[in-house]
């Protein structure tokens, strides 16, 4: 029987993944730059002025993608952490560790751009609204995950404890997502719903391009960071010694 055998676990070995990640980074980096240029062009030169918010609405082109990324990255991070707990694969925990700082950064940027958008539109940098508060909790979850991992010396125990925290924290993601429906909030409702969107096409395209750009950026940066994590975790192995002798 000619069943093609694909060894799915092959790339979960750090030694195989390390060079693969190195080869992939430039592609994602180039894509990130190209998509950013397209997204910024569409966002600033093609998308029209908003009839209510004037030019101030253009913050949406980074605010919404950054907020999406903050939630996506958390889910992906928790999934890797969960895989690490269940299958005890080394690479999964390293991936979770590599994702956390970028996720925290996007969470911060979502809050930052939100404050700069809230001030002119609502008259306040910050309000204790359900959407804003749950997003702030997300930032604390990322920080908690990183601190817990850093505080425990034994890497296996560190991965288990922080992995558990990541998984429990996932409950916050649907809360952020649904907060504008569940609570009466100052934050506006979802622009894109399953029933369609209330947005003008060029605005929507610009926002999606910026989101794709941030995805590509995240993949490139996280692959670069996981290579650092891999080197540190595997420093006593033969393959790292060979790898290091290649680059003086």
């Amino acid at each position, binding site marked *: 029987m000619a069943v093609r055998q694909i060894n799915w676990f092959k790339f979960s070995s750090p030694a195989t993944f390390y060079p693969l990640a190195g080869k992939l980074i430039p592609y994602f980096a180039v894509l990130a730059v190209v998509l950013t240029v397209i997204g910024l062009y569409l966002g*600033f*030169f093609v998308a029209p002025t908003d009839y209510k918010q*004037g030019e101030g609405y253009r913050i949406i082109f*980074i605010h919404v993608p950054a907020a999406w990324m903050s939630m996506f990255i958390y889910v992906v991070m928790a999934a890797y952490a969960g895989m690490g707990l269940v299958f005890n694969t080394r690479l999964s925990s390293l991936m979770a560790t590599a994702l956390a700082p970028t996720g925290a950064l996007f969470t911060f940027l979502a809050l930052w751009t939100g404050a*700069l958008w809230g001030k002119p539109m609502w008259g306040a940098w910050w309000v204790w609204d359900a959407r804003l508060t749950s997003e702030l909790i997300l930032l604390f979850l990322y920080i908690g995950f990183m601190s817990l991992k850093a505080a425990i010396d034994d890497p296996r125990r560190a991965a288990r404890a922080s992995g558990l925290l990541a998984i429990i924290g996932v409950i916050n993601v649907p809360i952020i997502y649904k907060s504008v429906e569940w609570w009466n909030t100052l934050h506006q409702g979802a622009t894109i719903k399953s029933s369609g969107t209330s947005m003008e096409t060029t605005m929507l395209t610009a926002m999606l391009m910026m989101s794709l750009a941030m995805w590509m950026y995240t993949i490139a940066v996280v692959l*670069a960071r996981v*290579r650092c994590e891999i080197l540190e975790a595997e420093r006593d192995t033969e393959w790292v010694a060979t790898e290091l*002798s290649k680059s003086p």
Partner: protein
Amino acid sequence: MNWGSAGEFFAMGGYAFYVWGSFGVTALFLLVEVVMVVHRKRTIVQRLGRRMRMQAEVKQ
């Protein structure tokens, strides 16, 4: 085209501080993250390389 002049573009209809504050800080932080990761990689390679050479000397 939304803008009559470069000045109009940078003024962002009076929202310059908010719009450029958002885009500027985002661009800065993303660049800083890239620099930090590149720097970390270089430091690790140097440190592990030194460690390897030291261990090789001890063995001799």
